[in-house]
């Protein structure tokens, strides 16, 4: 156990500290924040044997380059298909490695995915707000945004040689369809708009950040020019502005809003959706709330089992080689 110091050689926009989030404060205008892709975030912590809720770094397409100044530490990188450079080697994400004093780690956008997660075998020293280090991007409250030239430190850092190597990726969310439940303000839309919503292919626009993802595609027409009283919204709400353009609200969403919501993405599909990139196609499938509940229950069950499996240390290198030999080495290729 030791202390570690990193300097940030480069950080793109929207690279933030996040823990699992701060639910329970929406009544005060505070969305839960937390990681955009919760599964990848929890996987990065689990594979190090951490509490899956603990603070990690969320990396945007802008990328992040770190230099280790003091100490050494094992870390895990998950999320989208990002490019990792470490000790002159180019490796893919979903990997665990140890960074030594003087070494550099670069995480940059790769072929696909919008967010990567960097978790550490140690405790990040970051600011809390309302008992959570999650950064609320528009206010900056919480752990905060990582900026080029700054430093950050960790305590209780450890090297876990028995955890190094590629990470088993979750195999329970490969489907590209996004499930949503109609409403809660579908009554304000023309019937044709609801048909268009469920039959068309939308695309992710450039207007995508931690607050929301605006889509391009056919217009979703409202019944009349209307002004409804502001209503509470949730993560996943698909609000449609007066010009018929839908926006899916995400981790740092406003907590109330006056635009009608045609549908709501189910919570378990948001983790996949947020990894989509601008210009990628989005196809919605409408299901009822009971189907949504069953899907989410199944998803949470599979997620728990997956994280449990990840959290078990692989043992020493010899033990690992042996076990990989026994199962034919296919386990880490999925």
């Amino acid at each position: 156990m030791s202390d570690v110091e990193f300097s940030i050689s480069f950080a793109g926009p929207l690279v933030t500290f996040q823990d699992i989030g701060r639910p329970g404060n929406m009544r005060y205008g505070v969305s839960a924040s937390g990681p955009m892709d919760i599964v990848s975030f929890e996987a990065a912590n689990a594979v190090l044997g951490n509490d899956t809720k603990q603070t990690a770094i969320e990396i945007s397409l802008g990328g992040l380059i770190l230099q280790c100044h003091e100490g050494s530490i094992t870390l895990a990188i998950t999320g989208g298909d990002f490019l990792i450079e470490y000790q002159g080697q180019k490796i893919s994400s979903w990997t665990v490695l140890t960074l030594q004093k003087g070494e550099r780690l670069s995480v940059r956008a790769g072929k696909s995915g919008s967010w990567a997660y960097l978790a550490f075998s140690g405790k990040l020293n970051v600011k809390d707000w309302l008992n959570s280090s999650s950064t609320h991007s528009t206010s900056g409250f919480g752990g905060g945004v990582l900026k080029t030239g700054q430093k950050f430190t960790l305590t209780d850092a450890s090297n876990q040689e028995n955890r190094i190597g590629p990470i088993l990726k979750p195999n329970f969310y490969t489907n590209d369809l996004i499930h949503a439940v109609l409403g809660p303000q579908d009554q304000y839309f023309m019937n044709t708009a609801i048909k268009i919503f469920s039959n068309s292919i939308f695309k992710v626009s450039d207007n995508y950040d931690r607050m929301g993802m605006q889509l391009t595609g056919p217009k979703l027409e409202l019944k009349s020019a209307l002004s409804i009283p502001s209503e509470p919204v949730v993560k996943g709400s698909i609000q449609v502005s007066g010009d018929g353009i839908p926006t899916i609200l995400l981790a740092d969403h406003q907590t109330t809003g006056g635009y009608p919501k045609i549908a709501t993405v189910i919570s378990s599909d948001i983790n996949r959706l947020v990894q989509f990139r601008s210009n990628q196609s989005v196809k919605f499938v409408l299901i009822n709330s009971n189907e949504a509940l069953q899907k989410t229950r199944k998803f949470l069950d599979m997620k728990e089992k997956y994280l449990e499996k990840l959290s078990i240390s692989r043992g020493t290198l010899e033990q690992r080689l042996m076990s990989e030999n026994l199962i034919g080495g296919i386990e880490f290729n999925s």
Partner: protein
Amino acid sequence: MFHHKSLTLINLIIMQNEKPKFKAIADHALLITFSDVFSEAVHSQVVALDNSITLDPPQGLIETVPAIVNLLVTFDPLITDHLCLEKSILNNIKNMTNNSSKGTERIVHVCYEEGFSRDLETVSKACGLSKEAVINAHLNENYNVLMYGFSPGYAYLSGVPKDIQVPRKISAVRDIDAGSVIIAGSQCLVTTLKMPTGWSIIGRSPTLILTDDLENPFLFNVGDTVNFKRIDLGTFEKMNKASNYV
């Protein structure tokens, strides 16, 4: 403490009007809507239900979010479901009269000095009143906390008197300081962050809405009553030093 006037109103509305509408949201929430349009009576129903659920939370409840005409209830999908929660909330609604109470009265200090009230002159001209008359009209009203939204700690207060109601500006003005007291239509708000706004800026408050107190991190609850109290520049500076917005 029961507030008999609004109790009677709530009873009347429950008896005479349609029942509140329940709508399932995705896999983890319910929206309970009392009306399509705002009235004080509708909003007090929202607050009464919010209080009732807070006092006696159903299994699996995560949080409730009161707004103008409806209440959002979010839940843990592993513990409960939409139907169970609806049943339990219908019970709350039936017994609501026993739980409704008047909100707390809050004082917000406001300084109307020139440097803090860049739109006071425009408002006074638009309303055909002197600046002092606008200030007095603003001070003489009781405001009601309708809901939070937009950003952390942004509490929408209803009650701006008709005499000084002005519409939102055509476009927003950037970088308006935290603590600004702003109005648009019948609503008033004390900002908590440096943010753009299209509302009219009529004063500055040293009163913290984000209190920095972990027990009570936000000054208002939805349903509270707010009164503004005028302070001069000297008092503002003294009070502002004591507070510490990020």
